[in-house]
């Protein structure tokens, strides 16, 4: 983290000069910022580390820069880490559910259910009840 960062992205103060093809030029590396998972592992930011679950995988249809996608990925990956991957997600109707799932392109790497707009807590209660009665150690987010 000590070395100057080969920043930047679109709209940055010092846009790269034409002809500059250095790898990683357009992305922050070694930071906690969102990074590009297409880069080689050593060039990635912490957020695109190979060790992340990427429960909400890339390729979904959110608007570029969507904060909800970002937030969901942070939250679900943190929960995945906390539960050792034993996690089930219930998702209310909304952008997140829509952009992440059109068949056959689901971005979810964990068991995931969408039912309705107004019932996600109750659906979660049902999942938790089922897991409890079946004696399984999974968590419902």
């Amino acid at each position, binding site marked *: 983290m000590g070395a100057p960062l080969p920043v930047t992205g679109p709209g940055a103060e010092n846009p790269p000069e034409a002809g500059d093809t250095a790898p990683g030029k357009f992305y922050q590396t070694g930071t906690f910022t969102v990074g590009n998972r297409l880069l080689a592992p050593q060039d990635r930011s912490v957020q695109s580390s190979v060790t992340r679950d990427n429960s909400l995988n890339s390729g979904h249809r959110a608007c570029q820069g969507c904060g909800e996608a970002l937030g969901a990925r942070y939250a679900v990956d943190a929960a995945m880490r906390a539960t050792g991957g034993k996690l089930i997600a219930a998702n209310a109707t909304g952008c997140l559910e829509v952009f992440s799932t059109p068949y056959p392109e689901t971005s979810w790497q964990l*068991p995931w259910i969408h039912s309705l707009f107004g019932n996600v807590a109750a659906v979660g209660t*049902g999942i938790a009840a089922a897991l409890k009665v079946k004696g399984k150690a999974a968590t419902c987010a």
Partner: protein
Amino acid sequence: MLEQIEGSVAVARAVALCRPEVICAYPISPQTHIVEGLGELVRSGALSPCEFINVESEFAAMSVAIGASAAGARSYTATASQGLLFMAEAVYNASGLGLPIVMTVANRAIGAPINIWNDHSDSMSQRDCGWLQLFAESNQEALDLHLQAFKLAEELSMPVMVCMDGFILTHAYERVSIPSQAEVDAFLPPYEPRQVLDPNEPVSIGAMVGPEAFMEVRYLAHKKQRMALERIPEIAAEFRARFGRDSGGLLHPYRMEDAETVVIALGSVLGTLKDTVDELRAAGVPIGVLGIASFRPFPLEALRAALSPAKRVVVLEKSFSVGLGGVVSTDVRLAVAGLALRGSTVVAGLGGRAITKDSLLCVLARALRDELPDLTFLDLDQGLVDRQLERERAVRRSGPIAENLLRDVGTVASKVH
């Protein structure tokens, strides 16, 4: 074992014998005793392992059932009337997702005016929701249908509603035969989900589907109901072989031999109807009864075959499509399209009005003389209606209809006929 118990208790015992793993319900008359009964069985440990979830509404009840079923648990709930309407969005969702939830509907009228008594408006309002709808004629059949419903639901991966008349069945103490746990276990295998939320094999359930496949998903639901038309009689036959009695199936024919006139009905009114037809048969009238046990899927072909030799059909129904007429009748008409059959609809028993043998004899006598109009409301108080219409003609602010009618009737106490 034979026991003299309340219908609701019989259903609670039947559901418990099916080893549900998650039960979630919100109490509503006349369903309450069913879930209270199950609550007691879970609390006492008689039904275990099972999670009983108290929820804040019927919408939540169905939603909990959706989550539990998707996570691989055999799931059950029960409701009636306003409760069914309140959960309607989730009712459609459960069938759209293909989750084999079983729900008892203790049939009750829908308000306003608020009315807790029996008719079939509630489950008929969910006619097109994708659930299978089975109707019980007696408490014994209500009990038996729950065993069959779990089997059918889980085979098809589609939800099943068992409809039983509120109060008339739910609160009636009748003799019922309760099977043993071993007998039920031999009939109903453990639930093997087709889809399950499992961290070891993640799937996405409830994904968005666009025009490219939506129609196919809906068609598959229809296809499964058509497959159920085959399975329902087979399951009823297996049930008869194991338990020694007839329950379920598509149709309940009664004295249909050489019947020129056939009366069609659903649910407990079939009892009164059979007594009435016995009387007419004793007087030499060739009349029979055809009970519809499976309303969804609707047995179009079986009904057509059963009605082909007849001359007249009367559909006696406890449901009513305002602005049209009968609900069941519309489906029956489709089944007999092209047959030379005189048909009429008798709407009866709305809001719990008693359907008596005398009234049935009267209306069937008119049918036999071919004097019954297309649509009749059994025991409708025409004077009461006319006086209200007159009030509405006379003054603009004629006031609340229900209050006017009750004042006219001269009572606010419940009177069934």
